[in-house]
């Protein structure tokens, strides 16, 4: 048992850190992609798609007319007015952390506090050129340190499961978005799936989820969109896949259910979400349409998040 506000804060700290990490991953891949020769005919496209991945399309185009690299980096990495910018994510996570100091381990707190202390040293000027990669790597490191610190130091009880839920609900959403937008936006209007798809673009999806090398370890063949989709949606050994997230969410909720001796609507949704991925077939996903499938997943995931809040976090 713990304060509902504390649980809520832990959950959101983890969500914000995970969001910052996925944004950094996406930006890194985008930057890489924009250097590729293939990008000349779809110039600027990948920066626009990154804005969509981040879910901040509306806010961005209110402020800017064009998705130039400078604009996108400024808005997604540093803009304090964008509540999901990397800066905002780290600041919010640290503010929440300060409010629940007692529930965090020293390692977790120090990681968030150091990130926050270091943050003002990064700005648009400093990330020009090779500085961008250093910055994005740093963001990723902060998040990995936080998640690693969580696993390595936090007592296995409710507070831990709420923190982990935040990580996986956010990752489940982010992975689906990365997949969806790359699929949808990068594809020239009428290109066939599995047909003339640019190698780099598919590779970029894998890279964004740290799956480029592991894909090869699992499949031992060249990049095939079909397999990539299966890998990221349905392979449980892939730690950022949708099914891995669903399994972790289900597990955390089961533990909470045991600890508290009570189950809620969120348990049912989580079970359903996991089963669908566990017993589904990738053919069906493509038959339904990958985009439709992913949109539905994102929606279910949202609903799950709301139910978790309703059952535990509002008090």
């Amino acid at each position, binding site marked *: *048992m*713990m*304060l*509902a*506000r*504390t*649980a809520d804060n832990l959950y959101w700290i983890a969500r914000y850190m995970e969001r910052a990490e996925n944004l950094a991953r996406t930006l890194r891949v985008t930057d890489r992609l924009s250097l590729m020769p293939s990008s000349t005919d779809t110039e600027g496209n990948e920066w626009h798609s990154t804005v969509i991945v981040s879910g901040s399309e509306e806010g961005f185009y209110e402020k800017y007319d064009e998705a130039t690299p400078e604009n996108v980096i400024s808005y997604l990495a540093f803009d304090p007015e964008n509540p999901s910018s990397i800066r905002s994510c780290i600041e919010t996570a640290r*503010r929440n952390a*300060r*409010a*629940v*100091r*007692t529930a965090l381990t020293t390692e977790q*707190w*120090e990681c968030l*506090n*150091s990130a926050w*202390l270091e943050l003002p040293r990064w700005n648009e000027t400093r990330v020009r050129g090779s500085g961008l990669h250093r910055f994005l790597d740093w963001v990723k490191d902060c998040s990995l340190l936080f998640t690693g610190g969580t696993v390595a130091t936090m007592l296995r009880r*409710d507070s831990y499961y*709420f923190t982990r839920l935040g990580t996986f609900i956010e990752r489940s959403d982010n992975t689906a978005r990365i997949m969806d937008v790359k699929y949808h936006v990068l594809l020239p209007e009428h290109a066939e799936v599995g047909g003339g798809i640019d190698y780099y673009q598919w590779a970029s999806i894998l890279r964004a989820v740290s799956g480029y090398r592991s894909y090869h370890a699992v499949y031992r063949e060249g990049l095939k969109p079909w397999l990539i989709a299966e890998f990221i949606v349905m392979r449980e050994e892939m730690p950022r896949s949708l099914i891995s997230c669903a399994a972790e969410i289900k597990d955390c909720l089961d533990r909470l259910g045991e600890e*508290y001796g*009570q189950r809620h609507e969120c348990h049912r949704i989580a079970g359903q979400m996991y089963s669908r991925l566990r017993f589904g077939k990738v053919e069906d996903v493509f038959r339904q349409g990958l985009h439709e499938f992913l949109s539905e997943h994102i929606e279910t995931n949202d609903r799950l998040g709301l139910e978790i809040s309703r059952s*535990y*976090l509002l*008090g």
Partner: protein
Amino acid sequence: MAQAIFDEMGGPGSEVRQAYRKLQEWLEETPVDILTLRHEEAETFFRRIGITFAVYGEGGDPERIIPFDIIPRIIEAAEWRFVSEGLVQRVRALNAFIADIYGAQEILRAGVIPRDQVLLNETYRYQMQGVSVPENVYTHIAGIDMVRVGADEFYVLEDNCRTPSGVSYMLENRELTMRLFPDLFSRYNVAPVDHYCDELMRTLISVAPRNCQGEPTVAVLTPGIHNSAYYEHSFLADQMGVELVEGPDLYVMDDIVYMRTTQGPKRVDVIYRRVDDEFLDPLTFRPDSILGVAGLMNAYRAGNLNLTNAVGAGIADDKAIYTYVPKMVEFYLGEQPILKNVPTWRCSEKDDAAYVIEHMAELVVKEVHGSGGYGMLVGPKATKQEVEDFAARVKAAPEKYIAQPTLALSTCPTFVNEGVAPRHVDLRPFILSGKKIKVVPGGLTRVAMREGSLVVNSSQGGGTKDTWVLKD
């Protein structure tokens, strides 16, 4: 009052005092750049851990760290025994006084303290009249500010019976000196302080409300992260292993206080509150307060909740009431006060006020309700204009002021830009009162970092030191 400044180490030209000899040796053998390095490490440590506090009414960095001076202050066992006995006696008397004020008011009837001084006081809470509190304890955590002016001369400067802060610094400072200077630390036999939080928890449990069933549930109530002492609130909750709650986490139903948890409502029995009286319960005090909990006072009166420190304990912090504490010791305990008060002029009395206005440039003048070094005048350090302005304020509302001679506060060796130099210090020991009274050896030493300055308050740029009480 000794006029020459007493240096606790011995000062230049005079012999180094016994307790400081090993420190002196150590200072001599440690190069300045090592001290500088350790000083920087200390700063990084505070920042990284997030031990910060906010200074009100200024722009700039909202999370500031209090300067930590790396050179410890050392108090000998015999000196501490004397101080500690005096503190226990004083706090017993203060608790008896507050209980009396909200009870039979014997001390007023006996004419020892003028009735108006208490009953018309801003910090007197009529809502507490006739409310009985567990063990008759009102100030469970007291911080008594003391200064030293000579080898055997200690004075109490003020009593903090309401919500004294600073204990987290006492604990973190010790943590830090042990980490930075293990070699120096091991040369001394220093009395530990790290059991403070266990003692605090025991104290809180020992004053569970009369209707509490089973093991009491304790929580620390904070105004939130914007409060200047937020770090301390979270530190204490953490060390005690209890919840750190804010007003909105609590609600009252049928005169019982509950906190909102992930498993629904959970009853709370003892609240160590760091929210001021006026903000505790919008139904009883300020109706616009969002820091408190509606109905809290009803639960308190019904014996379903205990609040530490008790509502209304601030009456004893009043600087005019302070002047009567030695009389309280005699009145309630029938003992002679061990610790002396600083001679004080009460401007509410005509002769005193006249004297104060005449001699303002030599005196320290304070608001009776002021704290944190705000609203005070240090005569000898003030400009002519400042003295005149302050005199006008005193004339306009004399009852709001008291004055004291400018004390020659003792100095301790302190690491500053110029190297190691003497700086003025005071001491705030913490006294815990529940079923028993406990004093953890030492306390928080505050140090004025500027040369010659007598203002040690952290809000005025003061720093802190680790305070070592030696064991026999």
